[in-house]
């Protein structure tokens, strides 16, 4: 048995050891209480984990939802930005009534005349100052041949500024030049898709392709398109073309003429369209929405039928931004609710913990713990729980958008603000939902608490 004789030299050995005065913030006290908190959380591993889960999910949801909605709105806005924020797009549209009459008609094919004209563009240019450029295009659906290979695609007759106006870049070679436009030259710029379709192995640059009976020299290849096919559903083709190829405007007019004839299920259909598309560039982006309205009213006066469409990318961009904001508010509210639920979980578990540790509270109070020591102890525990949950949530919340991007190819953007905000909120929730249980712990009567079984 252990020798219980007291060691006389060890008795009353407190001389010289004085309590450190408590002035202001006491780091030692904070550290000790934190250690106690961690120990207690650790000793209830599973319960703590489940408690923390609520906060983890809440924080991860906040970050992931914001990242997804941010990404989606960025994507939408990018599409409109690609169309050009200072552009107005005009398109010819086959009016409904005309289409109807041509279907029911018999006899020789009769050309339907509709759409934008060069005169329209001249009128617009003359009445509105601040138009820096107009890029008019004719779009004709054609079979394009390289030897035995052929593709059905939209042949766009346009001007040299077309790529610049739509932030559309060349991958190889060059776009056709001013002089080639003037000369009605037989040159063509292929899209990536058409280039791959017609030239399986060899480099298309310098080679020729055939449209109808004319050969065109390939001078350039465009990059794959960065924007969706919004704004590409041009008149004159029932389906949007898989891809476009580009020839000088003048060449299109002189080779294909203004009237195009197509074989359809119901017979032969023929239509005359002067311009299929026009991109109007404005000097000052601020006025673009007003200019769009003026153009609309000019065209309304000049056209009997609604055989045109007008699109202002900036207006669509604004709409996209507004709906993105709405999405973010909804996402934020849902995530906020899950954080709130997480907070209630913490409060619940802290209350259980306080009841379970009533006796410990009594012991600590008997041994000199003040009310505020007890409050601190439970509050720190709640903050550790929610803080750890917040940290795990941040890690998950940043990882989830990556996974979404990797597997579904969606654009997601994690702004630095989102994890910061979510983590702060989670820590705050620890404080808010920890306060009540902590006060309850501190308000216990020490005598009652010591008697608690």
């Amino acid at each position, binding site marked *: 048995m252990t*020798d219980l004789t007291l060691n006389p030299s060890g008795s009353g050995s407190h001389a010289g050891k004085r*309590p450190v005065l408590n002035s202001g913030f006491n780091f030692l006290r904070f550290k000790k209480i934190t250690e106690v908190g961690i120990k207690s959380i650790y000793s209830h591993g599973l319960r703590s984990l489940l408690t923390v889960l609520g906060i983890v999910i809440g924080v991860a949801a906040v970050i992931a939802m914001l990242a997804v909605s941010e990404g989606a709105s960025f994507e939408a806005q990018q599409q409109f930005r690609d169309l050009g924020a200072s552009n107005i797009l005009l398109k010819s549209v086959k009016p409904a009534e005309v289409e109807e009459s041509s279907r029911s008609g018999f006899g020789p094919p009769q050309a339907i005349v509709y759409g934008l004209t060069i005169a329209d563009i001249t009128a617009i240019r003359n009445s509105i100052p601040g138009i820096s450029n107009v890029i008019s295009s004719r779009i004709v659906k054609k079979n394009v041949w390289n030897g035995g290979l052929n593709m059905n695609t939209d042949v766009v007759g346009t001007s040299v500024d077309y790529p610049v106006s739509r932030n559309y870049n060349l991958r190889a070679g060059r776009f056709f030049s001013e002089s080639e436009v003037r000369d009605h030259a037989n040159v063509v710029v292929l899209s990536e898709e058409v280039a791959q379709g017609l030239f399986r192995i060899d480099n298309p640059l310098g080679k020729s392709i055939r449209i109808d009976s004319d050969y065109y020299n390939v001078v350039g290849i465009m990059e794959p398109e960065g924007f969706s096919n919004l704004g590409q559903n041009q008149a004159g083709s029932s389906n949007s073309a898989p891809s476009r190829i580009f020839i000088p405007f003048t060449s299109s007019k002189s080779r294909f003429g203004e009237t195009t004839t197509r074989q359809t299920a119901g017979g032969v259909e023929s239509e005359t369209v002067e311009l299929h598309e026009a991109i109007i560039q404005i000097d000052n982006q601020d006025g673009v929405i007003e200019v769009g309205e003026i153009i609309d009213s000019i065209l309304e006066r000049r056209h009997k039928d609604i055989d045109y469409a007008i699109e202002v990318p900036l207006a669509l961009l604004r709409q996209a931004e507004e709906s993105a904001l709405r999405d973010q508010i909804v996402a934020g509210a849902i995530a906020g609710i899950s954080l709130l639920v997480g907070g209630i979980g913490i409060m619940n578990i802290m209350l259980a913990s306080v009841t379970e540790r009533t006796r410990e509270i009594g012991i600590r109070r008997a041994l*000199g713990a003040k009310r505020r*020591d007890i409050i601190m102890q439970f509050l720190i525990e709640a903050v550790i729980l929610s803080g750890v949950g917040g940290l795990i949530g941040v890690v998950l919340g940043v990882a989830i958008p990556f996974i979404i991007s990797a597997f579904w190819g969606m654009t997601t953007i994690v702004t630095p603000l989102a994890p910061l905000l979510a983590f702060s909120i989670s820590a705050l929730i620890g404080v808010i939902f920890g306060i009540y249980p902590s006060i309850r712990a501190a308000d216990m009567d020490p005598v009652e608490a010591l008697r608690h079984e």
Partner: protein
Amino acid sequence: MLETNLSMSTNSDSALIAGREVVASLDSIRKTYFMGALAVEVLHGISLDFYQGDYISIMGPSGCGKSTLMNILGCLDQPTEGKYFLGDEDTSKMEDDELSTIRGARLGFIFQSYNLIQQLNVLENIEMPLFYQGYSEADSHEIAMGLAARVGLQDRVDHKPFELSGGQQQRVAIARALAVDPLVILADEPTGNLDSKSGAEILNLFDELHDQGKTLIMVTHSDELAERSQRWVRLRDGLVESDDRLNA
């Protein structure tokens, strides 16, 4: 003031206590509990002086007010009327924070069921009162190690309470009670949960503490336990029935 108290203690052998300091003094303590409209007075005016080096057993049948008196002595509860001096401080009108401080600084508690904190090891349990008094980590550690050795548990300092026997746990509690070098050590049925052998070890420790001049106040039912002490206070129905002292 202490002098007056000394000369006025009529129920004790004044020859024996002459020259010893009063460490705790109860003056006409009354305690009433309110249960709804019902008021129950448990203590009807208790006056007692405790001297430096006293080894006291407080005894009496159940319901005599022992526990209530013990809670008041431990500053865990406050009297409804009367004064309680601990050292030279009147605790009867103290705020909660002051009571916490005086409990931590002046009193050592030993409970029947040890009341160690289960998540903490032996050393951390002994250090706890020192922590609340704001001792530095190094000082706490040194004091706690010394006390662990003093109760024969130097080899068990990193054990958790559940890894120890009842007797060992009570020794940890004694070491914890000694940590702040208190004015008075309060023990509530200290051997109540122990077998006779472990109980005897605890009582040996108490004897040694008494020999070193510590003041021990013990509440007990057990005559065997009470035999070891040097002064016996018997309570009955909330009053002091007798106060006897071992004549040297």
